[in-house]
């Protein structure tokens, strides 16, 4: 079910009304589980079986790891869990990509008969929920987490609908205590509801959802035509056109993905669950590593805790640290999709981190240089960082290698032509105006910390004006085609 459809709005209103009305309050979380499965089944049909399989696998393996005292057996159980989850992910997401590479290799060696593609449907959200379940078993294995007390509790953690299909990737250590706290309160101090909708959470949640819808439906969806126009066939485009396309796509994907995250976090908060933030003004990052502390935070922290650190992180030699960075970002790129451009995107980001770390190691004086702490120094750092970030977005957006090489060449080696760019700007005036507005708003959120809370704290008449403006803006620029969230594909 897409968040940006009337279907979801109706679903969510019915869900809230039912939760508020359920008399047998201890069944509220069972109801929430059923609702989450409905949410998934609504658009994914039989692929819900994979979600349930992943849930069952990790619930029982998690318990077995916890109860087993033998470290070899524990390790074996962990391997089974990892193999199961990654096998599922690998088969459904990467099988055809692997076949394509295999066939290509076969062609090079003149081997006859290509292996036919499996043409499997990509299960929506599989990359997100498998990472959640992996973190659960790994945390139990590490002794950092007690296994879930009941299957329904664990199933709700995996299937909780706000974050099910596109994150944020929630850790069991974050979600389960919140659920347990609600259930314990019911038993211990007789609080009437397990899941209560309280005024403060409702107001902040709705504010977040409104901002999310605005980012997605007002900004991202209306910047998309400009991006599509440029990158449908960039061959022959001027440098400035490619740069414009890269910036526009950077804004589009940020509006799209952070919009989804805001809606998810807002919806969860209304139900009384706090999900981790996923974005923190990424286009004000002053270095590549700073960018990854601000962009898709739940994924980057997952990769850090479950991949980078186990590989040795930065505790071993410099060479090993660089290799770890490259490997983690390569896999991070591959996580986004089974395509060469995502791998290149990952490798590019890996090399940014590697070069940045190398420079910092070779010239430690730069770290404490007072110039980079001044306003001017920070602005220069932001521009240099973002130049490379937007360059990498080109690899994310293009359709094939030829488009990629052409676009990158034009992005790097400016041709100083501008007639075509002016024509594109004139054709896509609305997108350009929205991009300017987006920059202004992004700057405002940078200057005014925690704008969301400030909006939530507005008195009701002003808050109504805010919701009215958001709602009217979305309605007026709605083009009848609710676009998919980009991260649904991953």
């Amino acid at each position, binding site marked *: 079910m897409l968040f940006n459809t009337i279907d979801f709005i109706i679903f969510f209103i019915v869900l809230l009304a039912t939760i508020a009305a359920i008399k047998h309050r201890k069944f509220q979380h069972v109801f929430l589980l059923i609702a989450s499965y409905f949410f998934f089944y609504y658009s994914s049909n*039989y692929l819900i079986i994979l979600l349930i399989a992943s849930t069952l696998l990790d619930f029982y393996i998690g318990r077995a790891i916890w109860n087993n005292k033998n470290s070899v057996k524990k390790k074996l159980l962990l391997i089974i869990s990892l193999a199961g989850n990654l096998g599922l992910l690998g088969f459904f997401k990467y099988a055809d990509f692997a076949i394509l590479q295999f066939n290509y290799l076969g062609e090079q060696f003149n081997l006859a008969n290509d292996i036919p593609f499996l043409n499997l449907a990509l299960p929506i959200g599989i990359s997100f929920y498998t990472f959640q379940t992996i973190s659960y078993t790994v945390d139990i294995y590490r002794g950092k987490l007690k296994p879930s007390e009941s299957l329904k509790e664990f199933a709700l953690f995996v299937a909780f609908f706000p974050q099910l299909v596109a994150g944020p990737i929630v850790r069991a250590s974050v979600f389960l205590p919140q659920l347990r706290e609600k259930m314990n309160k019911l038993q211990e101090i007789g609080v009437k509801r397990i899941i209560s909708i309280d005024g403060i959470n409702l107001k902040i949640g709705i504010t977040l959802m409104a901002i999310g819808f605005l980012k997605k439906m007002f900004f991202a969806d209306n910047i998309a035509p400009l991006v599509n126009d440029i990158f*449908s066939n960039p061959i022959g485009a001027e440098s400035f056109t490619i740069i414009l396309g890269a910036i526009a796509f950077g804004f589009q994907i940020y509006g799209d993905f952070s919009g989804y995250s805001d809606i998810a976090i807002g919806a969860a908060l209304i139900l009384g669950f706090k999900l981790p933030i996923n974005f923190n003004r990424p286009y004000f990052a002053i270095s590549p590593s700073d960018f990854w502390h601000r962009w898709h935070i739940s994924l980057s922290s997952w990769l850090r805790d479950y991949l980078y650190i186990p590989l040795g992180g930065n505790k071993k030699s410099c060479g090993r640290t660089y290799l770890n960075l490259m490997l983690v970002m390569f896999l991070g790129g591959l996580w986004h999709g089974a395509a060469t451009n995502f791998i290149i995107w990952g490798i590019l980001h890996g090399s940014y981190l590697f070069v940045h770390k190398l420079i910092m190691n070779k010239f430690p004086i730069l770290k404490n240089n007072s110039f980079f702490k001044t306003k001017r120094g920070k602005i220069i750092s932001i521009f240099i960082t973002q130049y490379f970030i937007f360059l990498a977005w080109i690899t994310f957006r293009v359709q094939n290698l030829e488009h990629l090489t052409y676009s990158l060449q034009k992005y790097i080696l400016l041709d100083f032509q501008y007639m075509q760019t002016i024509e594109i700007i004139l054709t896509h005036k609305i997108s350009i105006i929205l991009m300017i507005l987006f920059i202004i708003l992004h700057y405002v959120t940078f200057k005014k910390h925690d704008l969301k809370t400030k909006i939530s704290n507005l008195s009701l008449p002003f808050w109504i004006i805010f919701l009215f403006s958001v709602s009217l803006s979305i309605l007026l620029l709605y083009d009848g085609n609710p676009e998919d969230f980009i991260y649904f594909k991953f």
Partner: protein
Amino acid sequence: MGFIKTRNITLSVLCALILSIIVFLFIIWNLPDHLFSANEQFFSQEIKGENKIFILGSSHVYALNPILISNELQKNGEHFTVYNLGSPGDDFEERERTIEMIIEEEPKIVLYGIEPRAFETSGRNLVSSSYEVLPSIPSISKLFDFIEFEKKGVLKNPKFALIRTISKPINDINQIENPYPNSPFLTYDEKVSKIVNLDDLYKIERESISSIEPAEKNSNLLYLKKIIDKLQENDIKMILFLTPHSKIFLDYFPENERIVFQEIINEISMTNEMFIHSEIDRYAELNVWHDHTHLAVNNNTDFYSKDVAGFILDEIKK
């Protein structure tokens, strides 16, 4: 206290939403309905010709030259004045709103060019949900399909209507530069005359197609049937034909959607006892394409008009 606050917040949200919807509807209701107005303008004029043939369809009929078709018919002893009333973005629902104006002109034949995407369920970018092994849940939003709006055409795409109004007030159709005579709603565009060679055609991003609902649930089909019924009730001969598509589009046309589309075509053909002419793959491999679904509009694609004239003749002789 908590309850009161929750209630106040809920009421505030409702208030904001209702207010925004009212303002939105007010704006929309006051936006001009371009398609309707353009049709009103055209049909209020005197439309020449005793025996008229009207060609309807989207940009896929852009390459049909009405004068060329008229000449081809004349060569075979059939005297008709042909009008290409195709309009970019045309859909059955919008066309149904203007069909009375067409009927009043009493054309002898109405030719409608149709294509798979005219039967798409929703937007062109939606993920296809064609993998339904277990029973599917009916779409919640479809519950509201029974609501009839006076300006449903504008409501379907407020952004389009709004931008169109801001950027250019209703055009005087007589001021538009047309690609050929008798094509009042088509605007001359030099870009579409360019043939993109096959290698470059592959480089253009493919237009994806979203799911096509089966015949019994397809709302687009419903409107097409209404058009057919109204024309047949008024003894106007209707000819349907599938517009041409390139090999690239056809190769990537998802199998499920292909099957459903074929079933829809069979359904129209059977219930209305009409033969549906197919140009869908006739020129698929030729080097005559502007993009994956549109023939370039120049002298090299005159065969399209001639072929269409050919099956009009076949239908006349029936």
